[in-house]
């Protein structure tokens, strides 16, 4: 794939990023996202990068696409008219949620509405128990009567979710058969296929979400394929999924819920690729844009994955205020902290930042477009981290006075601080918020961040990454080239992959090697089948994972198995692997308790591209200083004279000692007084602690 021409396309909330790679050389552009017909921006961007690279669309060998469209359709509730068919007695599972309030002290709290109102949720008599055995058999005639009724209402899409179907899908398939017969135009999603995992709320919500966005995504993907073909494209288009791999357009149309958060997943893949280049086994990726920051742990050059995450949080990004989607996903924390995040002083006279954002209109106060509240970007400007003359390559002039006024009126006057101290306070709070999110994420994963290297990308990340490193005790920060279109580049680094999983409970005391071997084989062939559809010839690797815990615990830890361990399973090995990892996470094992396996998973993937290793360059020369400016430094709590260096001047081995600012069109890398920066052979900037 190295020599071929490939196109990566990421549709984001504001911009559609397009990257074309020809013989390893990247050509990129950003065009405004065209909401009404998102494919237009893609076609536009594709022509731009083709022109830059001197190729025609027909020369492109492969297109990899990721998009926030699925996420946005869920957030904005723009999905199809969808019905849910579920087990009698459980009509309200997606509405009753966890029966708790995600914010305990708000008497006026409202919970998010379920995706489907109650009248779109139907029940049928049937029941399967926790062993997968039928307690009440399904009566086909009853299903037919129900589906006749549903057909009258003109649903475009039908979700099917029955209790314990992850153990036995026969009843769900029977319902699907009847729906297909009587409603030939409706799209069907069944929970045992979309998300075969225990816990009815998550599974039902996931199948409903899939059904809800399916008509929209299927139609969009169809149109996109047509438009690309009209423009002369001859190759296949593939989709990035939330787990960090690529699936076929057909699979994406069938399981569109797997496209949720595919853009940020691309960012994590991008960081993982940089990690592989430098042989880094412990990396913290930090992606900060205009409204949110995303933080992800990348161990052994593989982003950490999870089986459930939450989309469309409705209440200050608060955990529990969104809807759970249980699919294989790259595990990251997202918080409302970006360049546009606004600050205020609360009742405790504490500075609070975000999640409210100034967006692009009116934007931070310094844009001079009517914004009068201080945003993170205003603080960055007042602290000297940004050059008012050269923001976004000089295309947006910044007004420092506006920033100072906003900072004073909102923070300084209340807290009796000058503009600079207010700005520092604001920056410290947003940096601390991100650092705390990173710390909690690390502890949830039993990791010590001081052993990590940070990789930062996204427009605002290089401005804040240095301080974050200080706060987290991280010694090394890498800022890769192309940071502004990191996710789209990441798409081009992603393998074809598909993860299949199943909830089946088994205690080690009831270890059934034959059953395990059969189950894992079945999952392997299911996952491999999806990947084979994308690539008829490539090698396909299988990664086996089981989720284990002490019987009686509620949280499992993932245990990786080799092919040999998976195909000749034995209880002693499983127990040893579990105890090793458990002790590492929580300090000690608990003696005398049985261990159980709850989830089984196989991820089939094509091999990662071979990376060209880069050896970290030491300092060999002093970078050319383009000028100086006053920049606030936390170490001295005052303004210091900082060197300004153009990023182009940071050639291999060129060094600049902090305090310094390394500037480029899309962003500025801040090197604090505690750090120095060295240019690397691949264009990365290595920012390391002094001494």
């Amino acid at each position, binding site marked *: 794939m190295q020599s071929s021409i490939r196109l990566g396309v990421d549709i984001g909330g504001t911009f559609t990023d397009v990257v074309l790679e020809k013989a390893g050389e990247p050509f990129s552009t950003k065009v405004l996202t065209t909401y009404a017909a998102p494919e237009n921006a893609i076609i536009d961007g594709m022509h731009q990068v083709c022109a830059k690279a001197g190729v025609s669309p027909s020369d492109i060998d492969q297109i990899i696409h990721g998009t926030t469209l699925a996420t946005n359709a869920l957030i904005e509730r723009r999905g199809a008219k969808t019905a849910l068919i579920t087990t009698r007695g459980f009509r309200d599972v997606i509405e009753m949620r966890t029966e708790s309030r995600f914010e305990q002290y708000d008497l006026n709290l409202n919970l998010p509405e379920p995706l489907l109102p109650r*009248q779109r949720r139907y029940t049928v008599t049937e029941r399967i128990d926790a062993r997968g055995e039928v307690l009440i058999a399904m009566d086909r005639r009853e299903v037919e009567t129900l589906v006749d009724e549903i057909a009258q209402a003109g649903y475009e899409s039908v979700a099917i979710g029955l209790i*314990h179907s992850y153990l036995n899908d026969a009843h769900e398939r029977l319902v699907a058969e009847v729906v297909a017969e009587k409603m030939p135009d409706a799209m069907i999603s069944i929970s045992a296929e979309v998300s075969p995992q225990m*816990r009815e709320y998550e599974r039902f919500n996931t199948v409903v979400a899939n059904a809800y966005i399916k008509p929209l995504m299927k139609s969009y993907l169809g149109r996109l394929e047509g438009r690309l073909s009209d423009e002369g494209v001859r190759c296949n288009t593939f989709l990035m999924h939330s787990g960090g791999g690529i699936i076929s357009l057909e699979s994406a149309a069938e399981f569109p819920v797997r496209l949720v958060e595919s853009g940020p997943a691309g960012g994590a893949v991008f960081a993982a690729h940089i990690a592989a280049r430098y042989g880094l086994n412990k990396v913290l990726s930090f992606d900060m844009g205009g409204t949110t920051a995303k933080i992800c742990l990348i161990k052994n050059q593989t982003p950490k994955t999870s089986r459930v995450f939450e989309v469309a949080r409705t209440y200050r990004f608060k955990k529990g205020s969104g809807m759970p989607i249980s699919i294989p996903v790259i595990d990251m924390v997202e918080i409302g902290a970006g360049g546009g995040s606004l600050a205020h002083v609360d009742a*405790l006279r504490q500075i609070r930042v975000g999640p409210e954002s100034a967006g692009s209109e009116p934007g931070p106060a310094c844009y001079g477009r009517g914004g009068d509240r201080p945003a993170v970007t205003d603080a960055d400007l007042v602290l000297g981290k940004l050059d008012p003359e050269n923001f976004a390559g000089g295309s947006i002039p910044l007004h420092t006075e506006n920033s100072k006024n906003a900072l004073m009126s909102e923070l300084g006057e209340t807290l009796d601080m000058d503009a600079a101290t207010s700005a520092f306070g604001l920056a410290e709070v947003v940096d*601390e918020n991100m650092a705390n999110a990173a710390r909690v994420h690390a*502890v949830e994963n039993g990791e010590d961040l001081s052993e990590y290297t940070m990789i930062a990308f996204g427009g605002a990340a290089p401005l804040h990454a240095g301080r974050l490193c200080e706060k987290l005790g991280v010694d090394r920060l890498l800022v890769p080239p192309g940071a502004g279109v990191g996710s789209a580049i990441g798409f081009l680094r992603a393998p074809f992959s598909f993860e299949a999983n199943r909830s089946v409970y088994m205690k080690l005391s009831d270890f059934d090697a034959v059953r395990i071997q059969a189950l894992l084989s079945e999952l392997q062939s299911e996952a491999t089948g999806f990947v084979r559809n994308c690539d008829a010839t490539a090698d396909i690797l299988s990664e086996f994972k089981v989720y284990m815990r002490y019987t009686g615990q*509620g*949280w499992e830890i993932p245990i990786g198995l080799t092919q040999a361990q998976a195909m000749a399973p034995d209880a002693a090995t499983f127990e040893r692997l579990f105890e090793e990892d458990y002790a590492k996470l929580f300090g000690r094992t608990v003696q005398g308790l049985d261990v159980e396996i709850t989830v089984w998973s196989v991820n089939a993937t094509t091999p990662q591209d071979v990376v060209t290793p880069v050896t970290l360059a030491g300092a060999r020369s002093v970078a050319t200083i383009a000028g100086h400016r006053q920049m606030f430094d936390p170490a001295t709590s005052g303004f210091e004279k900082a060197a300004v260096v153009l990023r182009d001047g940071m050639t291999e081995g060129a060094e600049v000692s902090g305090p310094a600012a390394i500037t480029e069109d899309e962003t500025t890398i801040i090197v604090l007084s505690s750090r120095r920066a060295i240019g690397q052979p691949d264009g990365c900037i290595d920012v390391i602690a002094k001494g």
Partner: protein
Amino acid sequence: MAETHSNVAYQVMWNRLISVVEEQAQALVRTAFSTSVREAGDLSAGVYDTHGRMLAQAVTGTPGHVNAMADAVAHFIRRIGRQNIIDGDVYITNDPWEGTGHLHDITMVTPSFHDGRLVGFFACTAHIVDIGGRGFGADAASVYEEGLYIPIMKFADAGAVDDTLVRIIRGNVREPDQLIGDIHALATCNEIGHRRLTAMMTEFGLSDLDGIAAFILENSRRATLERIAALPRGQASGDMTVDGFDTPITLKVTLTIEADRILSDFAGTSGLDKKGINCPLVYTKAYACYALKCAIAPEIPNNAASLAPFEIAAPENSIVHALHPAPVALRHIVGHFVPDTVYAALDKILPGVVPAEGAGCLCNFQVSLRPRTDAPAPPGAMRSEVLTFNSGGSGARPAHDGLNATAFPSGVMTMPIEATEHAGPVIIWRKELRPDSGGAGKQRGGLGQHMEVGAREGHEFDFQAMFDRVAHPARGRRGGASGAPTTIARDDGAAMRGKGKQFVAHGRRVVLAFPGGAGYGVAAERDKARVKRDLARGYISPDVAAVDYGLTEDEIAAVEKARRLGEDI
């Protein structure tokens, strides 16, 4: 500049301490065994200065732990003795009066040493599945029958775990492995807090917490007092009567708002109940304080200073101030009704802020399953204890409907029924919203829920009921109607009681309907569009739409037609 800058640093440190206790709580959830902790979030974690003053507390599912935790560490310091506090120690208790209200909560405290010097304490609490005795339920006549009592003592002395204590605990409880596992999880949780605190002190070059403690407590005190000062001064009383075990209980409170404090005086409240639904004062105080904080100062974090202005008084051996040896296992029932009682009074001083009455106490039950005894049991039939947490509807608010099947004042989560059915041979046949159970009003009360519980073939069970509002449904405010009461019966129609252990024979089920929240304002004033929406969704029946809300036959027919077409209104 230096002074202002240090304020920025203190702000950062305060945020960090809150993040430290959240991490502490998270570590407990990850390693705990009891479903009450790991699925439902019935736990708490906090950090304290050397005087035992709470500086920060994790926001978890249990307001009931708030004040109890704030007071607990001072008891530990007094009982252990300062001279005996050494590095590596871990302390333990389940004292209902010096911990968090019943024997089923284990509280553990760990002193935190930095550079050889005591700098503070970490404490955490979790609700465990079993502590011996009669098991979790209301049936005991004194605390002695409710299980093993662990006075405040060292669990680990300079790092060495007390094996005698561990053996005594193991010998007295039904699930020894899980309890010991939970105790280790609690110790781990404090250890994680201690590690993070040490890192913070190193980063900021602190040798003690005096400066940051003073900053936190002063800011919190000032913010809380500002809120109280802004309230109208005055005094008002409120009361509420609920089922109790055999005889009804009346809770009564007189609220006095002064310039710098709010006093909740429970004089006039019923005396002790014979059964285990009595509530130690510390737990009453927690829920009174929680109710007031929600209404007055919701965003001020809990610590010694922000809690101090909320004072409480109650007659000794009233049901909200139960003294040893009263039985207290289900103290949550009375505790969960305290906020509605406080709101009855507060509404008279501060109208338009607080909700109507809701379901109040959680609708919990425990099922003790065993192989059938009336006929030969099939092979594989087993014994099992299954506990579930469920919620009725919350009360309507001045500007919003009540929340359907959502806990208030408790903040715990329910367990997925698929997870519950894996915990033992229980079958949950039904768990869904209960139409027409929300009290009518301009704002409608939240809906309760239906549940139906049975056992897998070959099993019978004891059903331990912990319900209230059978005879005393939630009352409306400002003309709003009452919510629907709790109902409980066997599927063959045999009556069952709202509280206590009751046998359910092989093949039978328990049919439950949990209470709805009450309405707020008169129903006739409810927005017609929202009445129609409720009808289309089936939150209310056509009857209720016509009788309570005055929808005409034509309007109802039009909505019913839309409903059949799956249209929302």
